[in-house]
């Protein structure tokens, strides 16, 4: 009986590749694998956006209009709807001159109760240190 903590670290720009979408869908899907594990075994995912990856968290993405693909914004909201821990690197948010208002911080419009957290790099590092597996996207 054990919990495996997985940290999904998103450093890629949105829409340049499928990397950030894969991170989000894998983090969400990790919540279903317990049905295939031994009784009591669990998976705890953490999603952290760092570097250029913080731009995935911008509000009002017009992905369908600009690129003809579904928006990552909805995937991030779905992560919050499913109570995943979502962290956005504070230093990188500041480096891009972004404010909290510009970022997807909640999913209240779809019934979500969990908020994203703009966290200092050292907090994200602590999450990474305490994770069993690090997955970089």
């Amino acid at each position: 009986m054990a919990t495996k903590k997985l940290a999904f670290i998103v450093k890629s720009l949105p829409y340049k590749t499928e990397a950030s979408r894969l991170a989000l869908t894998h983090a969400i899907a990790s919540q279903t694998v317990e049905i295939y594990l031994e009784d009591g075994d669990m998976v705890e995912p953490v999603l952290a956006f760092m570097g250029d990856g913080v731009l995935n968290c911008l509000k009002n993405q017009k992905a369908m209009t600009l690129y003809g693909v579904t928006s990552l914004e909805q995937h991030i909201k779905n992560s919050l709807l499913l109570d995943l821990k979502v962290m956005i690197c504070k230093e990188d948010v500041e480096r891009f001159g972004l404010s909290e208002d510009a970022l997807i911080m909640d999913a209240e419009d779809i019934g979500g109760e969990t908020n994203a957290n703009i966290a200092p790099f050292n907090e994200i590092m602590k999450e990474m240190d305490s994770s069993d597996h690090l997955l970089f996207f």
Partner: protein
Amino acid sequence: MGELSSATPAQTLDVLGRVCPYPLVLTKKAMEKLPSGAVIKVLCDAPASAEDSIPRYAEKQGFKFESVKNEGYWELYIQKK
């Protein structure tokens, strides 16, 4: 009609149009909030979720489960133990 499908559900969860893994994770989230003994009715049109992952989840948790197949979707009844 089965025992669960004839009961009045405490909640109806509509995941029609949602594909794997959302039906299962939304069902799990809803089940966590239900009191013991309560029945949830899940409307689902994703075959992999309705016929595999959600029944497997219910079995693993020891929850009672019934499935009613309709034209193009399933009614899934789960009772929390």
